[in-house]
């Protein structure tokens, strides 16, 4: 499975997460957002997305949900408003991270 933006092809896994987080860009985020019931990426969305990407590239894993909320200042309720399918699925997908694994 894959999708195309400006002639560039992006592979996605069966859960719709992009296979190579390094190839991610803002246009990819906007495309993936539409698959997660997010019509438009606002400043609030970008703050979460950028935080996730920075953490992922430092530690090789998404941050703890509680840490994400504390460091970005958005309570979990707000994260769900921004990303209806939640931090692990919606937010990580739009940020171009791999799907979190284990019992999360």
């Amino acid at each position: 499975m894959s999708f195309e933006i400006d002639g560039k092809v992006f592979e996605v896994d069966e859960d719709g997460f992009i296979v190579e987080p390094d190839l991610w860009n803002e246009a990819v985020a906007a495309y993936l957002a539409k698959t997660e019931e997010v019509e438009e990426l606002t400043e609030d969305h970008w703050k979460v997305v950028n935080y996730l990407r920075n953490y992922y590239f430092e530690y090789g894993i998404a941050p703890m949900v509680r840490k994400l909320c504390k460091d970005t200042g958005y309570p979990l309720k707000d994260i769900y408003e921004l990303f209806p399918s939640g931090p692990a699925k919606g937010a990580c997908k739009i940020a171009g991270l791999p799907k979190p694994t284990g019992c999360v």
Partner: protein
Amino acid sequence: MNKLFDEYRVLSDRILKPQDERVPSFLKAMESSLSSQDNWTFYLPYLLSLENCMKCGTCAEVCPVYQEKKEQIYHPVQRADMLRKIYQRYFTFTGRHLPFLVGAEDLTEAKLNELAESFYRCTVCRRCAYVCPVAIDNGLLVREGRKILDAIGIAPDELKEKGTQLQLKMGNATGAATPAFKNMIEFLEEDIEDTRGYELEIPVDKEGSNFLLMHNAGDYMAFSETVMGAAEVFNAAGVDWTLNSPDTGVNDAVNYGLFFSDVEFTEVIKAQIETTKKLGADTLVIGECGHAYEAMKYLVQRLIPKEERPFEVKSILELMDEWIKQGRIKVDPSKNPDPVTYHDACKYGRLSGLYEQPRRILEASCLDFREMYPNREMSYCCGGGSGFAIMEKGDFKKFRMEYYGKVKAAQIKDNGAQVVALACSNCKGQFRDIINHFNLPVRYAGISELVANALVR
């Protein structure tokens, strides 16, 4: 993906490989499952369950999936019969020679697809086994069927590739390496200080402690209030305890092998035992995770000799219950004034008999504890069991909500609780989705979190 028998598909084509010829290898793997030499776990009940079902349908009366929509494909006997028909046709004398006499049927590739998908539509909650008048365990047949499927390369990636295999490689199924793990611990220490106003050191990798506490690694990521609560409780009890990092081996209590494979199960449990021995703990404490407790307390006994496990195994629920009784920790129920209910996780309840410990803990640390009905042995599975809580492909989350979640949501509405106390990560994941999906005016909490909140320091 093509639909198989309804609008859902939990096993994708990549996993199911419908284009391949799989029947011969399935039959070979099944033959091996029918040999007591090769099947060490539940050989006898497996054989008895294959041979003795009376088709009375008592199990269907209590199956949460079947009761929801009464579709024949979800009838527990019909599901188990998929395996029984193969057994009759290929592994019994009459079935081989006079198949029509015993309802034996040839296995086709199309039937194999349906069997595989169907065996991943049941959480193996064992409510059916509890009521069977002749002690047939249709749930066990589902597990044995999944073992055969895994032997021919069919297992959900969430449980194997990204589950047991990742856990063996990284030490945990979340894929957290030691720097990430240490970062989490630092954050939790800071957060306890910020929210509770006191400093607490969370010991990591301490050798020779009395208690090695192993959480479900997913709790750090998604349900860290449970991890924080446990740290506060252990600290308040003043015991010698430690967590462990991936540097020491496995630092994740989960064992998804329990759901689908004795081979994977054994690999994981051996690694967990090795880690516990290396750290020299007297007691391995299993954090809030139902299947991990069943795995390390009971299923392990079928596979690893006692002398190779020189430590005690306890659930964090048993410990907290003891500590409250002994007065080792003091709790003030008025600190948890909201009405609280408890959901019996299948693996703690029907599979392990831990019914009273969580109730005693909650009655001591919450002002208004109320049961949901039915409960204990007849508790409804929440629908997150057997790894379902982490499966989402093929519209599976909707399946979890429509078939299991709806029943659970109704139970909660009926008893008016504002907090659902949960002792299992899969249950937490499923209730998180149920609460959102049905817009319930409740929150869920781990048992350790509620106890920590009630601590008198």
